[in-house]
């Protein structure tokens, strides 16, 4: 089928099979391999991207369902060389080790912060309930989300 979607700000027309998953379109056809596949039951969250502004699991979305939509992947989060505060905070707080879950974790975290700019521990736990990490033990990930929240609130108040 023919699709048109906007990926990281760039609108493109593509062709794919009806059964092509969004994650496979992103990885194989567009070459954005930052989004990862980690399971086959839609539970690990490694494939999380933003679809029309919301975090979704791209392994459980058909590319066809995303026709006409706007998608942001991990590659589209930074502005040129300027990293997103969530990306910075994950590094600063050592919230990543092997990095495989990290793109999905970052995309889920940015969505969580959009909904809860000053999240409680409980809101962070619920916000990341769809993402697995085997390396970090999560404590530093939670710290990273809180630091990112601070950075974003400070930046928000600076520009206000």
């Amino acid at each position: 089928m023919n699709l048109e979607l906007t990926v990281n700000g760039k609108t493109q027309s593509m062709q794919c099979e009806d059964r092509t998953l969004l994650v496979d379109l992103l990885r194989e056809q567009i070459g954005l391999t930052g989004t990862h596949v980690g399971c086959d039951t839609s539970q690990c969250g490694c494939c999380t991207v933003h679809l029309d502004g919301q975090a979704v699991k791209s392994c459980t979305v058909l590319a066809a369902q995303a026709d006409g939509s706007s998608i942001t992947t991990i590659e589209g989060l930074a502005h040129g060389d300027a990293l997103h505060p969530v990306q910075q905070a994950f590094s600063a707080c050592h919230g990543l080790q092997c990095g495989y879950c990290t793109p999905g974790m970052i995309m889920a975290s940015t969505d969580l912060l959009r909904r809860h700019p000053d999240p409680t521990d409980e809101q962070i736990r619920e916000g990341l309930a769809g993402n697995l990490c085997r390396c970090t033990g999560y404590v530093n990930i939670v710290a990273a989300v809180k630091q990112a929240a601070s950075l974003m609130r400070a930046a928000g108040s600076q520009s206000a």
Partner: protein
Amino acid sequence: MNTATFTPSRVEDLRLVTGRGRYTADWNLPGQLHAHMVRSDRAHALVRGIDTSAAKASPGVVAILTADDVKAAGYTDIPTGAPVKTADGSMQVKCAMPVLATDRVRFVGQPIAMVIAESARAAQDAAEQIMVDYEDLVSVTSMDAARRPGAPELHGVAAGNLSAVAIAGDEAAVAAAFARATMTTTLSMDSQRLAVAPMELRACLVDYDASADRYTVYTPTQGMLGMRGSLSQISGVTGDKIQVIAEDVGGSFGLRGGSASEQALLMLAARRLGKPVKWVSSRSEHFTSEWHGRALRLIGHIALDAQHNILAIRWEHQADLGAYTCYFQAFIGTRNLSVTMGGVYRIPALFARQELIFTNTAPVSAYRGAGRPDIAYAIERLIDQAAAEHGIDPVELRRRNFIPNDAFPYTTANGTVYDSGDFDGTMSKALVMADYAGFAARRDEAARRGKLRGIGFGCYLEASGAGGAPKDVVRAKFAADGRIDVFGVTGSSGQGHETSFAQIVADGLGVSPAAIRYRASDPSQELVGNGTGGSRSLYGAGSACKMLAARILELARAAAARALDAAPESLQYVDGGFQTGSATSDPGKRIGLLELAGKLARSADGAHPLDCEGEAVSGATFPNGCHVAEVEIDPQTGVTEVIAYNAVDDLGTVISPQLVQGQVHGGVLQGAGQVFGEQIIYDDDTGQLLTGSFMDYPMPRVGWVPNIRNDYNPVPTTLNALGAKGVGESGCSGSLPALVNAMSAALRSRGVPPMNMPFTPARVWEALSERAG
């Protein structure tokens, strides 16, 4: 949002947080074909025939490999690991797993065939058309079932499904100790079978260059040499013809040291078909077919005298090998369970009898700690049980029996030499940190809310890896861009080697870490050294890095002397440069190291005069610590909340505090996973795997252990140049006993007898309700 001043914590971070990591599945080569595996759906069956005719005719299919192809290519079996010596002096019965099943399958998920096609989908479609003619046999999926008289035997050569009975220690001394003991305690503990479950799914892409007779193998590893060695062993292709590439690896935890069937088959296929071939696993295949972890039973008997001195511990261990001997479970079930079987205690007599048993399950190999967290767990649990049974305070029982600080180096009753430690100091520090003394009040407050609290701790000690290679060597090559490339064998799967090793070299040279690039397993460099494993990379390769820095300075001194027209011995090395003056404020004549390097002329082949190697021989070290966990159980639902987790570790000299803390955190959560939910379960009747996905296998998530406080009681080791002890497996070694002792204390207070892990809500509730009557 000003990010101009952002400096990443680790060198690796920038590419990983922006999605520019390169994991195996991210690689593609022009013209590549795709493979899909056909796996057994029976636990135990004869294979009468495999009908590939429909599959061969399926659209897009290029080839189908079966055991006949493996044999024709001269490939051998999956490596079995070094054989274990048995109690009567003979060698273990080894039953190697064939790359593809021949006349029999012995576990659900065992590889039977590989289909190669133009697309992954076409390969999968074709694979579904392969008809295997099975003749079902009775299966045994537990060690108990496998050892019952009359049980079906998996391998004719292993009578009663026993691969080996090994012993360690002194049986007679232990028997004598038990004969004069005032009190004894016995406890049987299972360390249940687990899935390793790194987040990156296994994948492999192989390209064969016929003109150079060279294979390029992209696959996740723990260091190139181990993977290459196993591929060489299976395929018969010499190592110089195999190049292994693993730029980024999404976790490993012991799983990825060597090749399984798929990587070897792709070598065969790429050569035969003249095109690159790619295979990516699914998560369900990870559950059925990749090596599982742990699967041990540890039965401990402890003997005490009237003053509560430990006279002896006698162990009976059973290790489930799975259906075949693959890689490490034999070593785990014998050496790794005995090397530290006395833990941190001064025990005059130790003995272990160890059985290695075949079952119709996936083969078992190394998973984070590979037996050492398991024995640490068993010792600490046994001690707590003895304390409870005989009315002894668990802190006092330990304190009385710790190896004292003035006893080092200490040789254990079974010959292990511990170099250093401050066990009492570590425990005391941890108990204060956890406010152990104040627990009773917290327990009572919780009780008023209807909740059941428990506190428990584990004084663990583990032997980090001695390593198989004779030494670790790292090589420096001064690059044209003014930076120094440091090549080593050990490969990161999240540990941050690029950062740590760069830091060690930079510290030794007094330059910025940004000037150093660590490159693991670079195909252009032949090196001796160990891969990642047994928590030894930091002190092993790291010590070599320290030696490397010293060697560079040795070579540079002569060149600096010529550049400054001074005597070499008169120069001082200050702030990353050679100078005639003695202080920063009064340098005299000075040349920076990197500046000097830039001025030196290269030889005709491009080698730089300062290019050199550093090496170190670093044996096992003994990381240890005391972790304290406080839990709160809701008796109505059986749910446990981890209220507090405090960890005090002796990791010797800590080079990268943030990375070390991260390793402990990760290990603690993996331990928590095992304690509270993870378990691979097979159906006893059908042999089918019941926990085949994340729907049924509960992985730890955010909030399982909400807070972990870390502190250290470092006693530097003299066993390597850095004074560092390994940390990779400490988190598991501390968390298993701490969490289980806490759960056991809470449940014991309600009359619940000792329970095995996992302490799922359902099991905890059932145990409590049984007691409540």
